């Protein structure tokens, strides 16, 4: 008998202890998986999403993808108001494509790293959890978008807006990563060391993506850069360019 063709059973549900430790209560979705219901579950009851992932339906993952798409697009448009013109459509397009590419190229390593952490889950489960992470990160960026807009209307400093966006990006990724590790522990992960390494890799990939698709903020003669750069080199270049000695004293 070929035992290799029969994979080990995937845990149908988590232990109550793991779910409690991760702050997630595994329970069915309340009502149909509409966009508002899925967004509410993402923020308030992530355990409901995990339950839906285990059920294997496509409704919740599709709504998560839609939520991420809308959130990143709106965030991108508001970020584009800093420069205006073509950036109003280029910034949302680049941010969405950048996130999609980062997710696609990091997904294989996520699957392997989650297995190294002792997670015995199917590909679609891992993909759905990753989708949840991206959707939550994007949703938080949407929440920060009005703040970005307030500052973008009152500064010309690329360095300042870049730093602000970077901070908000890191905060969004922090909560997204928290969802990923929490969900992994609920599904059956024994540790989270490898997942944390993967999160660091994913973060660096998104930073590099923002450099490879530059400019996300500011203007350029070409849609995509003609010169290849490492993201740290790109940031340093802009910080040096911004460090002008001009001093503006506010009038009270």
């Amino acid at each position, binding site marked *: 008998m070929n035992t290799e063709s029969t994979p080990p059973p995937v845990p149908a549900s988590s232990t109550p202890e793991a779910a409690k430790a991760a*702050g997630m209560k595994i329970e069915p979705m309340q009502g149909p998986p509409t966009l508002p219901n899925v967004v509410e579950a993402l*923020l*308030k009851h992530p355990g409901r999403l995990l339950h839906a992932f285990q059920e294997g339906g496509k409704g919740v993952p599709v709504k998560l993808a839609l939520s991420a798409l809308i959130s990143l697009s709106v965030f991108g448009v508001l970020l584009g108001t800093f420069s205006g013109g073509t950036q109003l459509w280029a910034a949302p397009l680049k941010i969405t494509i950048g996130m999609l590419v980062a997710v696609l190229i990091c997904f294989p390593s996520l699957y392997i790293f989650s297995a190294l952490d002792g997670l015995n889950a199917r590909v679609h489960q891992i993909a759905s959890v990753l989708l949840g992470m991206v959707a939550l990160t994007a*949703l*938080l960026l*949407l*929440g*920060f*978008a*009005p*703040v970005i807009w*307030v*500052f973008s*209307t*009152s*500064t010309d*400093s690329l360095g*300042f807006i870049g730093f602000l966006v970077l901070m908000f990006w890191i905060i969004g990724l922090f*909560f997204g990563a928290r969802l990923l590790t929490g969900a992994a522990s609920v599904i059956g992960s024994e540790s989270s060391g490898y997942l944390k390494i993967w999160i660091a890799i994913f973060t660096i990939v998104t930073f590099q993506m923002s450099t490879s698709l530059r400019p996300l903020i500011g203007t350029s003669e070409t849609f995509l850069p003609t010169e290849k750069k490492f993201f740290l080199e790109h940031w340093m270049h802009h910080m040096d360019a911004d460090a002008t*000695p*001009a*001093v*503006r*004293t*506010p*009038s*009270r």
Partner: protein
Amino acid sequence: MSHDSPHLARLRLLARGEPEALAGWLRQTLTRETLLTLIVTIIAGCALYGFGLGLWRAPLQGVFVAVKMPLLIFLTLLVNGLINGMLGLLLGSGMSFRQTVVACLMSFAIFSLIVGSFSPLIILWVLDSPPPGQPGGAEWYRIFLLGNTAIIAFAGIVANHKLLGLIQAFSGDAAAGWRTLVAWLAGNLFVGAQLSYILRPFFGNPELPVQFLRPNPLEGNFYEAVWGMLRASIGPDSQVPVTILTIMLIATAMAAISNHMAKQAGKAFKPIHPPPP
């Protein structure tokens, strides 16, 4: 037996700021009257106090600041409403978006009650002061700035302390209360500082004209201005050590907050006045 109108009863509830009572109020269905009480309290308290702030420069400046101070609060809430609601949900406050907005309004209403209660004092203080340009005016202006900074800081600390109690009572989790308060406070201070920069002047520099907004209010931002002034005052040689010191101070403060939260983790919120069985 009390014969207060519902509005006065709500104002007393706000001023007493008992966490369980405020949490109970928050759990109720939001009515127009409740919203009206909170909004009117913020407008009245901040407008009265704002009038006192600008009065010394000129009565017209007082009117301008009376309009701008409530505006500053509502704009801060508007800009941060979405992210505050999301962070509240993620950090375990247990509040919906609507409840988050109402909780923040309650906190700002408590702030407004406090500063509003100081407004007669401020107005009398101004009326009894040397006017701008007269001998002693400049010294008095500095004391006035300092005194009002202390009043605003006091009102802010009390309002946030009440907000912390409210979140803890609502969520039943002491650590969740701290986490949510720190997140909301950081966001509101960050955006509030920039909005106050856009809406300046508030105190009204005696050397500058009376204006609703300074020319080009959207030019520059608060943090760049502070950074620019810091760089100019410390000189080029000290910039790196001062920056490192600032980062270390921020990191130490964050570590202290994180440590405090870790100690609070798992502790249930203990109500001072247990609800009746």
